[in-house]
């Protein structure tokens, strides 16, 4: 081994650090996925987890663009949707069994989604990635509207309002999965989620992955190290679209139907919120966001009809006060506990937590009372046997006092931070 070889290995991360930072998280992730079926989940749980898997892949793919590439897209569901639609057609070709499709297992449909989403992104990206920043964001919005509108015009491709449906239980079986029961689909989801997430992580370690971050931070300098930033953006955009298409393929197999809504601004916005709430500066952020928001969207709607309002509030609060998202909060706490001022930090967090919870109580009472009042059913909000009506003075005390007290505590904790010497 030459001198230089030894020397550059000295400055590279050590084997142990690499294991801790790169291998271990994936090992835990995979282990959790493999262990979940042992808990014998209910059908509802399966349905929820499959939805999570789809959104994990979609959100991480989206973050290749937003977090790693610095491109804010308002229409990434276009590639999710086009990939998914292609898979629905492929599913029907498999059912017909003509040509090579007769021997194509539905298990591998996400590959078709990958190709479909990727091709769409190559074509659309060829002009949309010429610009970055606001221009790119506006083009993505325009393209999303265009494709959505177009979807209602081309019925044979998109199936009009009914969409296109199919049957996943055709074609040859692989890995002994009939693709019928939810537990079979679980392994399908596990396979593609693990594969896609590892592939997308590996991408961040490739030359193009590094250049993508370089282009995000400083496109001008990229030009002066011999790279065309437009080309970098286009390639990253295409790959991101391809992985979004793969998620679309997973969705096609899961639901056996695709409607034009899947291409609309609503899922595009939802994936943006997922990635952002999870934390776009971390690879794991969008995974956390996807799990949390999928859970919220399916479970919170059982508790309250105002859940979208809570979702919106959470998004606004994260953007304003925790721009590094949930992953940022978790890693921040982790670093704080291990840091030198652990006691100090914990005290501050306790105050912040108390303040946040107090405000939350006031807010929940306000929202729930308001929703019931505005619906005109004359219902009262009755948590834990309590009775809140919009006319009662007690209700307003329970709203205002916690809001004010919580706000005061949060300001107190915030001010302490400012007073601490730098």
């Amino acid at each position: 081994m030459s001198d230089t070889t030894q020397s550059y290995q000295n400055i590279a991360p050590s084997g142990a650090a690499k294991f801790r930072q790169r291998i271990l998280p994936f090992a835990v992730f995979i282990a959790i996925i493999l262990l979940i079926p042992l808990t014998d989940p209910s059908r509802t749980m399966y349905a929820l987890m499959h939805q999570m898997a789809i959104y994990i892949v979609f959100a991480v793919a989206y973050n290749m663009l937003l977090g790693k590439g610095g491109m804010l897209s308002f229409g990434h569901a276009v590639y999710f949707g086009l990939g998914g639609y292609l898979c629905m057609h492929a599913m029907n070709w498999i059912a017909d069994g003509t040509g090579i499709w007769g021997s194509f297992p539905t298990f591998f449909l996400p590959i078709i989604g990958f190709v479909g989403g990727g091709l769409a992104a190559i074509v659309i990206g060829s002009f949309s990635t010429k610009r970055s920043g606001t221009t790119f964001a506006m083009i993505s919005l325009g393209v999303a509207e265009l494709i959505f509108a177009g979807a209602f015009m081309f019925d044979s491709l998109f199936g009009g309002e009914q969409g296109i449906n199919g049957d996943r239980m055709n074609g040859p079986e692989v890995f002994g999965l009939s693709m019928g029961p939810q537990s079979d689909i679980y392994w399908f989801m596990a396979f593609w989620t693990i594969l896609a997430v590892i592939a997308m992580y590996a991408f961040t370690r490739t030359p193009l992955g590094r250049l993508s971050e370089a282009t995000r931070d400083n496109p001008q300098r990229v030009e002066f190290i011999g790279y065309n930033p437009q080309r970098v953006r286009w390639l990253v955009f295409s790959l991101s679209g391809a992985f979004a298409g793969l998620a679309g393929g997973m969705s096609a197999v899961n639901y056996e139907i695709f409607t034009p809504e899947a291409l609309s601004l609503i899922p595009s916005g939802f994936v943006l919120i997922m990635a952002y709430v999870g934390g776009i500066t971390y690879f794991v952020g969008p995974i956390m966001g996807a799990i949390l928001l999928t859970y919220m969207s399916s479970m919170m709607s059982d508790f309250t009809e105002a859940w979208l309002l809570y979702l919106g509030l959470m998004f606004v609060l994260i953007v304003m006060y925790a721009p590094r998202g949930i992953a940022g909060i978790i890693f921040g706490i982790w670093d704080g506990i291990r840091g030198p001022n652990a006691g100090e930090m914990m005290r501050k967090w306790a105050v912040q937590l108390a303040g946040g919870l107090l405000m939350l109580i006031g807010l929940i009472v306000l929202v729930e009372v308001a929703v019931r009042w505005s619906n005109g059913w004359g219902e009262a909000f009755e948590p834990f046997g309590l009775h809140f009506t919009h006319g009662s003075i007690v209700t307003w005390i329970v709203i205002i006092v916690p809001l004010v007290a919580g706000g005061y505590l949060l300001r107190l904790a915030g001010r302490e931070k400012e007073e601490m010497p730098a």
Partner: protein
Amino acid sequence: MTAPALSLKNLCKSFGPAKIINDVTLDIAKGERHAIIGPNGAGKSTLFNLISGLYTPTSGTVSLNGTLISGVAPFEINRMGLSRSFQVSNIFANMTVRENVRCGVLHSLGQGYAFWKSVTSSKEVQEKTYEVLEHCSLVDKANTPAALLPYADQRALEIAITIAGGANVILLDEPTAGMSHSETDRAVELIRKSTEGKTLVIVEHDMGVIFDLADRISVLVYGEIIASAPPSEIRGDPKVREAYLGDEALPEETV
């Protein structure tokens, strides 16, 4: 006769009615260390931007080793062997020092836009990165995020990225601006070492650095080159004294 490393012919650049560069003609031979000096607003940075492809000339041409490069995209000019630094540190702030240099190395070692292999798979890239880090005395800061570097080290990193691709023509825009005396000395040493056998074009305000480093000096005033000669002649040129140096003391001849 071989073509000059850089050749500017009747170069003009206007922004609206304002003529920033006016009919500049200049040949810079291979291996020459050429300094461009001039008062603030003389158009030095604009000249750099024209040469490196950031701006397209209003008229006139720029040639690199005999090949016309005016109107060519900056990344293509860079691939042809011309690299530049910036007056304001222009680094990848969110990356570590090592990753910064590695980005600068990638293209010259044929890594292209590869997304099918790890960035660490090429031994050549690793070794070249280390070489550049060592050359610029940045090895012990290799894993520091670039944004956290002290100012002088950021400037060194700026130079490191500039030379990482192995370009033959190096353009440095005020590399020692804002540095202390000892830092400046270190930077000059680094520049001298890094441009050994290469063509250097440097814009600088520190006269000590200029007269120390340059083989030839061009004086740019209001977009025109009023003199282009070796340091000893520039020192004595009355036109230069009047137009630019004024009463400022020139470093005394100390030979």
